[in-house]
């Protein structure tokens, strides 16, 4: 879980992807989601997944990206497991082609994770909130989002401190059955929630003291402007999107199992 969160955490780096306009990257993540959504065969989905690896390299985030994908494996296994189970329950688990279709669903999920983590890993939350702002999302919503990201690490640190403090008082967190264990987390949650509320108060106080809500027309110091490379990237994504639809309606994809079989000679 923690490494999945880590995968979403932005780190400042100098790369072409980091420099792209956040709106273009958001469009990319959404376009990939649509592309993966319309396809349900293994071959195109696998292509979509692998085609993102060079992009991760371009953004200099290969290791973080791979770690995010790895962290999503339990969910992938869950998807495969439940699908296999229910297909088997219905008695339609008859051949390997069905297994391939089920695996394709898992790959589709990986494609989602891959594209969104490329987006979040190369876009600073400030930029993202600016993009949302310029797309007409109300500022208070953007601020909420930004503050949530800003204070996540603070809250995590606070949770650790509270856990240590309660352990020092003799609280045993990893003992007993699941219900007993969950109950032991109450003495951690309550101080954490109380602290969060206190923090919210002092934040609100500081915001008020800096003219929060003073003017209906808030100015923003930063302005996002689309440059040549943004238009280029946008066109490339749009082109892939059109190609994906074309492929869906006009191409027929073979199963990859026979290909693997003949390659291995079985």
């Amino acid at each position, binding site marked *: 879980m923690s490494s999945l969160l880590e995968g979403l955490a932005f780190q400042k780096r100098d790369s072409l992807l980091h420099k792209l306009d956040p709106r273009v990257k958001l469009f990319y993540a959404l376009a990939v989601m649509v592309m993966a959504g319309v396809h349900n065969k293994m071959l195109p989905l696998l292509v979509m997944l692998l085609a993102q690896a060079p992009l991760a390299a371009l953004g200099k985030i290969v290791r973080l990206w791979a770690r995010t994908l790895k962290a999503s494996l339990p969910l992938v296994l869950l998807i495969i497991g439940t699908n296999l189970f229910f297909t088997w329950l219905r008695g339609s688990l008859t051949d390997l082609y069905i297994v391939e279709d089920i695996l394709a669903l898992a790959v589709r999920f990986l494609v989602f994770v891959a594209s969104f983590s490329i987006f979040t890993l190369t876009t*600073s*939350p*400030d930029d993202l909130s600016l993009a949302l702002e310029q797309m007409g999302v109300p500022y208070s919503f953007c*601020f909420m989002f*930004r*503050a949530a*990201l*800003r204070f996540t*690490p*603070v809250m995590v640190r606070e949770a650790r401190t509270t856990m240590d403090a309660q352990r020092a008082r003799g609280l045993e967190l990893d003992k007993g059955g699941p219900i007993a264990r969950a109950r032991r987390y109450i003495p951690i949650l309550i101080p954490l929630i109380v602290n969060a509320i206190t*923090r919210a108060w*002092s*934040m*609100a*106080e*500081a*915001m*008020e*003291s*800096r*003219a*929060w*809500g*003073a*003017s*209906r*027309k*808030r*100015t*923003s*110091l*930063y*302005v996002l402007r689309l440059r040549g490379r943004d238009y280029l990237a946008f066109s490339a994504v749009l082109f892939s999107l059109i190609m994906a639809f074309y492929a869906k309606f006009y191409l027929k994809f073979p199963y990859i199992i026979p290909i693997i079989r003949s390659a291995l000679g079985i």
Partner: protein
Amino acid sequence: MGIIEVEDVSFTYSGSKRPALDHVDLSIKKSEFVILTGPSGCGKTTLCRCLNGLVPHFYSGDFRGRVLVAGLDTREHEIWELSQHVGLVFQNPENQLFCLTVEADVAFGPENLGLPREEIRRRVEWALKVTGMWELRHRPPHELSGGQQQRAAIAAVLAMKPEVLVLDEPTSFLDPAGAAEILSLVAELNKRLGITVLLVEHRLDMTSPYADRVVVMAKGRIALDGPPEEVLTSREARELGVGIPKVIRLYELLAERGLRLPEVPLSPGQMASLISEVVRCR
């Protein structure tokens, strides 16, 4: 008339029985450096909140009397108007920085005011330079030291161009080096730019050399108000548990033993020169 006039102010938070402020009178002149001190829970923070309108606009309760800030009655003007005259810096720097870079944080106030972009850029640059944060402007707050974070918070408040800076225990989360960093910055802003300062502080060792006046509060009232040499040598101050600077204790102990210095020293350096003067005369 002073830039801040607190006239017979009493305030009780809603839900509380005891008044947090009890008939408080305080007048602060332009460019003055005033230290506000006193035991915890004596109403220092509430008084600070009165100065930019957080009381009575943000904290509700029973408010009596009148506070004038640059001639504006705080009951009739919104917090955002008052905050362009009085900048409030809080204890915990972490909760005052909401953005992911220092620069964005400093821009937050002027952006809220809806100022033209050029003006925002000018103010941000000025505030960052004046606080020595220009080089660190692209850094996220959580990567900074406590002293740097608090400096960023001061820059963020300065970008609102206030005439008065009110700092509520700005050093209590900082180590000694960070505290010294902040206090000398505040002293410089006061001396060089003529910004009026009200500093709530317990560490009087470090701060009293800068102060024109020390105000001591107790139980919601102003107990003592005067020049540091006077207030800090008074018996009442000691009885109220004010953190009397060590040089002043030393001055008093020397006096008890018959060595009377011509002045009350506020810093070790001043004390050293006073002592050597006296010794040379003998």
